[in-house]
């Protein structure tokens, strides 16, 4: 029972991390139609910036993390200006390649700046654990789950009830019509990139204390998040959250009990099956348009 609780908490926390990563690039996808392959490296960058603020500048954990989040929002805007704005009218494949290029640049820059040795980022709640029925659940996991719940709640509110959310939804439905109605594409796009960057930093900072921070750290999480988002029907926020939950449970529970060696591959097997059997995702109806 204790093992089950520990694994279940691990699965929930992992799902929460994937959700944080997924909402970051889904927000961007909704607002601009771009699938940002640099998102994973933004996660890594967020972790390293927090490490720098805490370790090199000597800031306390929380302000250091906030500094990293703010800096990543700025990085998001820079990315928008450099890698997205000049290509907005180009075909989507071009923009995707540009984000991959940006990912390469970010990753290589982190390598030059910090080297490739793995780091360990301290969490805001320390290394303590919460003991439930004999199982130890790290405070950090509890924190991740809570923060993710709050972030998703806020995002849903923003999407439903604010002007920005309405503009994003309009852009997602029909960019041309939205522009004709006076949606300022440039402003929305910059805001979305900034928010997406901040969310990436948040995800990176939250998950880094549980694992080691190295150059490939964010990329794996982004892949998991993308897998979950595709399985849930790409662009569908609720579907993505459920998809993340599914990926987390499959990897931690199934991988923890049955197929230990192959735990890393399990979510991808599930993803492959979903795409093979229902290419449009589990929760999305799909219509082809010319």
């Amino acid at each position, binding site marked *: 029972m204790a093992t089950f609780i520990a694994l279940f908490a691990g699965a929930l926390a992992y799902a929460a991390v994937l959700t944080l990563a997924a909402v970051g690039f889904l927000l961007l996808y909704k607002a601009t139609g771009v*699938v940002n392959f640099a998102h994973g490296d933004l996660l890594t960058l967020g972790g390293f910036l927090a490490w720098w603020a805490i370790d090199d500048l000597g800031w306390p954990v929380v302000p250091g993390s906030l500094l990293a989040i703010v800096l990543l929002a700025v990085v998001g805007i820079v990315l928008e200006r*450099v*890698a997205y704005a*000049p*290509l907005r009218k*180009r*075909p*989507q*494949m*071009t923009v*995707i*390649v*540009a984000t*991959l*290029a*940006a*990912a*390469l*640049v*970010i*990753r*290589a*820059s982190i*390598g*030059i700046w910090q080297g490739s040795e793995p780091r360990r980022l301290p969490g805001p709640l320390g290394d303590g654990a919460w003991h439930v029925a004999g199982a130890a659940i790290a405070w950090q996991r509890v924190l991740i789950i809570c923060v993710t719940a709050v972030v998703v709640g806020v995002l849903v509110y923003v999407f439903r009830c604010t002007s920005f959310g309405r503009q994003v939804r309009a852009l997602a439905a029909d960019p041309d019509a939205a522009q004709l109605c006076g949606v300022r594409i440039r402003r929305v796009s910059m805001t979305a990139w900034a928010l997406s960057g901040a969310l990436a930093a948040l995800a990176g900072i939250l998950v880094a204390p549980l694992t080691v921070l190295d150059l*490939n750290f964010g*990329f794996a999480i982004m*892949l998991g998040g*993308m*897998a979950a988002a*595709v399985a849930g029907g*790409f662009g569908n926020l609720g579907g993505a959250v459920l998809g993340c939950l599914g990926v987390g449970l499959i990897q931690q529970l199934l991988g923890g009990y049955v197929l230990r*060696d*192959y735990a*890393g*591959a399990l979510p*991808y*097997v599930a*993803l*492959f099956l979903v*795409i*093979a059997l229902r*290419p*449009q*995702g589990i929760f999305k109806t799909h219509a*082809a*348009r*010319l």
Partner: protein
Amino acid sequence: MTDTHNPAAPPDGATERTGVPGLDAASGRLDDLRARLGASPRGTVKPPVYGRHQYLGVLAFVAVTAVAAPNLITSAEGTNLLDLWLLYSLAGIGFYWIFGLGGRFAFCQTTMMAVGAYASAYTIERGQPFWLSALCGAAAAGAVAAVVGLALARAQHFAFAIGTLAVSQIGMVVFSRTSEFTGVNGQVTGLPYASLFGHTFDSDRGAFWLFLGVLGLALLLGVFLERSPVGREAVAARDGEMVARTAGIPVRRVHLMLYVLGSVAGGLSGALLANWQGFVGVDQFGLDLGIGIFLMVILGGAGSIWGPVLGAGFYVWAPKLLSDFKEYQGVVYGALLLVMIMVAPEGLIGLAGRARALLRRVGKGGAHG
């Protein structure tokens, strides 16, 4: 992802008059000659099937490489890179068939290379001759691709990309964890040298001829494919899937065929790589090479079969040229990719075509002014 863009190759055969009088007279006579022979006048855009010179282009490329490369490049390191260039070109051409011609973004080309390498190593360790093991490697990659391609047949662009990404992730875990087929931790060592018809390719220089021959065959097949109905159907399916389907083109079958064919090229490349280097490791076929193959095709040009060859050359030799900035290599690659995609989305090959068009325009302007 709703639309995929693939810059088409620049239209061929449209020659403009130059400003030089003698040349104009000559080209006028040439026009007369063409008219008398019943050929179409110059300047008309001809469908690629008429460009029979493409076969000659491949032969010329093989001949020039065979003559020039061994004479120009004599150092051991250079010969090694030369072989690597030929093998990466082969894998790149495979990716070009899937992505450039088929318009399907497959993330798993390196996985197919790994499948080819492991399958070839497996058969050769059981005493099979080299040619059979290389064929086994290619066939194994093709078989895996057929299963994956059939399973993902209905997946649209982005879903297909992510599905193949999943395949590559599964592949990495499986290769490093199963020890029966792929060796402990995915390491197979001590493979013998390749040998064909009693001749052993036991040096980099010897392997060069083998690889050049294989690449030449792949290029010929590529030209044949582009001139065949399948090539035209693939372009139609890539540029307007719904329209192509309405016109009766079996889009899924074309996609599947190109995917399997491209993967076979990847598998063959992996098998040759394994026999040449004598070992197979998981890390060899990791994310770095995956991004590398992608770089080759995009930088070289996704609109022409020569793009991957050019791009592979760049990818192989750039680290040597940039050895002073070794730590900045990743930044340089990324920045270069970014600049290329903004300035010349059709790649280095496209730049060459554009330069030709510019020269032509300059000549034309000179005639009027």
